[in-house]
């Protein structure tokens, strides 16, 4: 397998797709505006240890929250706000509606941003609070719903835009010096897969490019999808993905910052990421994949392949 650990971002390839460029402008604008309006958010836990990232594949769908591992820790309001909904996860009597997010609390923060603090310990939710200050105690961490291990799932929903926002965009940065890992990448056609690096030549044609890349998260208890992925084929940007926001279109949740993509279009089995479907003509092709975590740690790999 041929891998080049180069600082590829220093040698940007000119973008030939204005669509992608516009998306980047919008994404940057969104981040700047969001940060300007909610710059004061704090982590709801002390010493937060992420165990799952926004947009990562889990149980047949995306996670819209960031998972933070902790045992018996106090959960605090990330900002001033007003408590708008409390749900005791064991409260099944009302029309038998279960809660897969266990015990949870919703807080209306500034500018229509709803903070969702879920998987709290049963009976720990502070239902008696109404007006909240930053740091007000909302409950304690637990595992009251569909969650492996104790902790807190924290999500931000932008009511005005009608979409979920990656909390990492708005929270103080966490020290992270570990770059994401590219485990493998392969080309897929007709149900058959060819691992890049192991395969030197293939028949020309249309292939789907899939990468198995993970970001080893701070807690070390799991792995999450890298925040940003870029695919370059023969020097041309072929796909780009950043896990910024997600929204529902026609009854299907889609990641929306770099072109809406639904779960089946983005994730193959075992959480592997579908990057693009591309026609490979006869000749030599170079496939480069760059992954980056939210702290800016990058990793890149490239493979050469002959198409016959």
């Amino acid at each position, binding site marked *: 397998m041929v891998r080049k650990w180069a600082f590829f971002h220093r040698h940007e390839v000119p973008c030939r797709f204005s669509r992608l460029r516009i998306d980047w402008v919008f994404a940057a604008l969104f981040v700047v505006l969001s940060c300007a309006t909610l710059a004061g958010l704090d982590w709801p836990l002390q010493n937060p240890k992420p165990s799952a990232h926004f947009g990562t594949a889990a149980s047949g769908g995306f996670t819209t929250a960031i998972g933070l591992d902790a045992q018996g820790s106090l959960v605090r309001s990330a900002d001033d706000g007003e408590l708008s*909904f*409390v749900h005791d996860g064991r*409260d099944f009597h009302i*029309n038998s509606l*279960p809660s897969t*997010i266990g015990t949870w609390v919703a807080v209306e923060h500034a500018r229509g941003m709803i903070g*969702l603090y879920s998987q709290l310990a049963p009976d720990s939710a502070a239902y008696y609070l109404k007006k909240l200050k930053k740091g007000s105690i909302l409950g304690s961490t637990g595992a009251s*719903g*569909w969650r492996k291990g104790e902790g807190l799932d924290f999500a931000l929903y932008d009511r005005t835009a009608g979409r979920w926002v990656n909390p990492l965009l708005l929270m103080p940065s966490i020290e992270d010096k570990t770059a994401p890992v590219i485990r493998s990448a392969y080309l897929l056609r007709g149900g058959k897969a060819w691992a890049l690096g192991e395969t030197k030549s293939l028949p020309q044609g249309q292939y789907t490019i899939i990468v198995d890349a993970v970001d080893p998260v701070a807690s070390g208890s799991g792995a999450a999808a890298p925040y940003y992925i870029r695919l370059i084929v023969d020097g041309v940007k072929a796909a780009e993905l950043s896990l910024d926001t997600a929204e529902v279109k026609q009854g299907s*949740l889609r990641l929306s910052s770099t072109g809406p993509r639904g779960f089946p279009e983005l994730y193959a089995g075992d959480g592997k990421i579908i990057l693009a479907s591309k026609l490979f003509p006869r000749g030599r092709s170079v496939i480069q994949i760059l992954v980056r975590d939210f702290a800016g740690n990058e990793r890149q790999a490239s493979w050469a392949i002959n198409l016959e």
Partner: protein
Amino acid sequence: MEENGKRQLAIALVALSGVIYFFVCAIPLSRELILEPAWAVSIPTGAATLGLDRPTAGHGSRLSFRLKGSFGYFDEAGASIFAAPVSFGCAISDEAYVSYDRLPEYLSLRNAQGQETARISEPGYPFWGGGRLFVMHPGQVSVAEIGSDGKRLWTHDFPSVITAFDACPSMALFGLLDGSLVGLDSKGDEVLGFSPGGSRIPGIYGCAISPDGLLAAAISGLDSQRLVVLEKRSSAYRVTYHRYLDSNFRRAVDMSFTEDGRFLLYEQEGRFFVYDPSKRREAVVDSAFLGDLGLFSSAREILVAIESGEGGRDILCASPVGKRLFTLPFNAEDSSIALSSDAIFLGLTSQGGASNMLRLDFKEE
């Protein structure tokens, strides 16, 4: 002398009128309705205890119960009872149930005899509505309907967290944290989309759909909280009744249509309201209501609910015009209630942990 005679005649006429009125116009007192215990059986405890060694056919209809620590089935005659402990959660209807752990590998759909009829590979927690089985996916923003073979019929992602639900055979109604109300038909297609406004903070805190699917209702928003009733006219749902409420619940609110669809019941602080859609009129029942709203005997025109009483809990029987008829106190830590045309079935768990099922017959004296 003549004047004196006239006065006597007038007095006699008034007295005669009174006597006639007493005998002709008097309405006999209605017979008093009481609850008479018919039978009581203890609910077996322990792991998947089975008391149902005889088929229920011939003993009366089968009904389900759900208590904090156990769930199961009994027949109206009290001849048999099946009970199993709740491990984490249980979704139960009168026909089938799914008992599950916090992180189940798969869900096992079982009939009322406890036999597995299908396996559901959909991740999440199951729940019933309108005789249909659904699974809430992890994240609380996505739902799938499951067929009797355990296969997914459809799936739907919602824009924000699901806070309220009700269903009938033709529609599943979902309330969301962002304040929208979404109705899906039996194929999972959206047939109702509505966002009640008028409150400082939008949100759906409770919702209900009538058994025929023609009426939908929701309690929405904070500051001020609002009741909205929608009616299906031609193909679209339109608001036919709304009012601002005194409440500002920041939790799920209990509301339900009665089984015959004649009344909408919804909880408020220390009371519950009865809305009659045909007259667009509301009545109020003062009650420290605890749960099981929506039970209504149309044969007897009686609403039944559980409320907290002085010494524990009460069964409350009230009329739909808001009159408290009578209460029956009982001592229990947890209770469930079911209703047939001529009886109330009360499941209760005492503080010691023992559970019993009682049948209380309506009698007139």
